[in-house]
C-alpha cells in the first residue's frame, strides 16, 4: 500500500470513484435516448398515421383533390431529378475545390480567409440560398422555376459540406504516401489522380451522400425559387427512344419535390390529407435513411482494401 493505508481503504476509494463512472454512464444514456427516442417516436407516429396510404398507387398517382386518390409520383420523380442535377454540379465543384485547397493552394492568409468563409457558408440559413437563387438562376440567368434552378441552388447549399469532406478525407492520407509518389518523379496531378483521390474516395462519397441527404429534405429554398405545389405531369424523360437517346429538356421543366408535396398536404384542412402527408413524410425519411445507409456501406466497401 504505497499511498492509501490498507486494502479496505483502497477498495472504498475505488468504489467511490466508480460511482462517478456509473453516474456519467447514466447521464450519457439519457442524453442519447432523448435524441434517439424522440426520433423513433416521430417516425413510428408518422408510419402509423400513413400506413393506410402506403400502397403502389400512392407512388404511381399524381396529386389529386380527392385525398384517397392522391399520390406522390410527381414529387418523388421531381426529388430524384433535382438530386441528380444537384450531384452533377456539387460533386465536381466541391471535390475540385477541396483538392485545390488541400494540395495546391499556398498556405497563407488568403487561403485561411477562404477556409473560414467555407465553414461559414455551411451555416448560412438555406432560405438565403433560395433568395440568391431566385435572383440569379431564376431571373438573371433565365432558368425559370425549373429543376435546373433547384439543382443549382441545392448544389450551392451542399457545396461547403462536399468541400470540407473532401479536404478531411485527403488530409487523413499519411504524408509518407505523398512523399512516396513524389519521390518517384510524380507531379502533383499524378499524385492526386493515382493516390489521393482513390484513397479518399470513401470519405468524399460519404460527405457527398450526407450533403445530398440534407438537400433532399430542403424545403425553404425550393419554395423560394417557386416550385409548384400541385403538379399533375412528369418532366420529359431524360431517356428518349430516338437518337440521341438523351434529352435535357427535363432540366427546364417545372417540378415539385417530396417535402413540398408534404407541406402542401399538411396545410389542407381535411384529415384525410394528413394521412397522405404522414405517408409522404415516411417515404422521405426512408429515402434519407437509405442514403445514409448507402454512405455507410460504401465507406465500408471502399476502405476495406486501404490500410496505412
Amino acid at each position, binding site marked *: 500500500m504505497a499511498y492509501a493505508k490498507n486494502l479496505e481503504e483502497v477498495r472504498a476509494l475505488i468504489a467511490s470513484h466508480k460511482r462517478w463512472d456509473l453516474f456519467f454512464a447514466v447521464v450519457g444514456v439519457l442524453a442519447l435516448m432523448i435524441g434517439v427516442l424522440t426520433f423513433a417516436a416521430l417516425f413510428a407516429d408518422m408510419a402509423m398515421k400513413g400506413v393506410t396510404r402506403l400502397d403502389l398507387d400512392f407512388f404511381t398517382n399524381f396529386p389529386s383533390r380527392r385525398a384517397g386518390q392522391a399520390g406522390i409520383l410527381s414529387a418523388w420523380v421531381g426529388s430524384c431529378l433535382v438530386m441528380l442535377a444537384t450531384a452533377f454540379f456539387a460533386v465536381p465543384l466541391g471535390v475540385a475545390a477541396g483538392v485545390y485547397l488541400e494540395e495546391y493552394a499556398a498556405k497563407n492568409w488568403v487561403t485561411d480567409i477562404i477556409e473560414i468563409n467555407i465553414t461559414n457558408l455551411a451555416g448560412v440559413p438555406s432560405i438565403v440560398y433560395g433568395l440568391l437563387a431566385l435572383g440569379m438562376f431564376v431571373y438573371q440567368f433565365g432558368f425559370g422555376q425549373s429543376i435546373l434552378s433547384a439543382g443549382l441552388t441545392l448544389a450551392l447549399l451542399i457545396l461547403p459540406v462536399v468541400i470540407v469532406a473532401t479536404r478531411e478525407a485527403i488530409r487523413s492520407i499519411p504524408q509518407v504516401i505523398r512523399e512516396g509518389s513524389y519521390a518517384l518523379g510524380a507531379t502533383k496531378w499524378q499524385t492526386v489522380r493515382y493516390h489521393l483521390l482513390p*484513397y479518399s474516395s470513401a470519405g468524399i462519397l460519404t460527405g457527398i451522400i450526407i450533403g445530398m441527404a440534407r438537400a433532399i429534405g430542403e424545403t425553404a429554398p425550393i419554395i423560394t425559387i417557386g416550385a409548384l405545389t400541385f403538379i399533375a405531369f412528369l418532366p420529359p424523360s431524360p431517356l428518349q427512344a430516338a437518337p440521341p437517346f438523351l434529352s435535357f429538356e427535363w432540366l427546364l421543366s417545372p417540378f415539385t419535390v417530396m417535402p413540398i408535396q408534404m407541406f402542401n398536404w399538411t396545410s389542407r384542412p381535411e384529415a384525410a390529407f394528413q394521412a397522405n402527408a404522414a405517408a409522404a413524410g415516411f417515404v422521405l425519411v426512408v429515402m434519407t435513411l437509405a442514403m445514409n445507409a448507402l454512405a455507410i456501406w460504401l465507406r465500408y466497401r471502399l476502405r476495406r482494401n486501404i490500410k496505412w
Partner: protein
Amino acid sequence: MVNDLPVAAITAKADVKGLSFYYGDFQALKRISMAVHERKVTALIGPSGCGKSTFLRCFNRMHDLYPGNRYDGQIVLHPDNTNLLAREVDPIEVRMRIGMVFQKPNPFPKSIFENVAYGLRVRGERSRRRLEEKVEQALQDAALLDEVKARLHEPAYNLSGGQQQRLCIARALATDPELLLFDEPTSALDPIATASIEELIHDLKKQVTILIVTHNMQQAARVSDFTAYMYLGEMIEFGVTDELFIKPQMKQTEDYITGRFG
C-alpha cells in the same frame, strides 16, 4: 577532415559542394562538402538531429514539397554535371533520376504489381509487356520475386514489414535510378528482415550508387564502403568506412563510434 582515399578506379557520381540548408531561419546543414562514389555504398551516421536525413532529402529535392525551405551550395550529379539544387532544375526531373526508400515501408494501398509499376506509369509507360518485364526485373533485383510471383495482383499490405520494404526498394529500382537514397530503411524492421535488407543493399551496389542514412553504426560498418559522420549539421569526418571506424581522425568521431556519446 577527409582521409586519404584510394583514388584509383573510383569516380564520383555526385559532388556536394558547400551545401547549407535552412528550415526558415534555422540552419540545419552547414557548408557540407563530400563526394558520393559511383557504385559504392556511402553511409551517413550521427546522433539524432544531426541533419543526416535532412542532408539525404536534399539529393531528391524533397524539401521543395514544403514551404520555407532554402538550399545554398551545390550537389553536382555526374556525368552531366547538373547542379541538382539549381533553381532552374525541376525537382521532378531530379526525382526521376534519383530514387528513394523511406524509413517506414510506405507501399501504396494497391496491388504488388501496381506498386512497382507506378514509377513507370508516371513516366508514361503504357505497354503491358514492358511493364510486366520491368516489374519482374525490379522484384528480382529486390530479392522479392520468388516470394510474390504467384500473388502479384494481391494488395501489397498483405506482405510482411520486411517484404514491404523490399517492395519499396523494387518500386525505386524499376525506373533505373542513377542514385538510390535510403533513409534509415531498417529502423522499423526486425533483425531478420534487417539482415535481408542489408544483404540486398550489398548486392545492389553492383548496379546503382547508394547513399544510406543509418542510426546504427554496426549497420554502416557492415554495408558501406564510405562513411560520413555528421554532428549538428556539420560534416565532421568523411572517409573509407574501415579506416573511419578503425582509426578515426577526429576526436568527436572517435567518441561517437566508441559509444562515449550519442
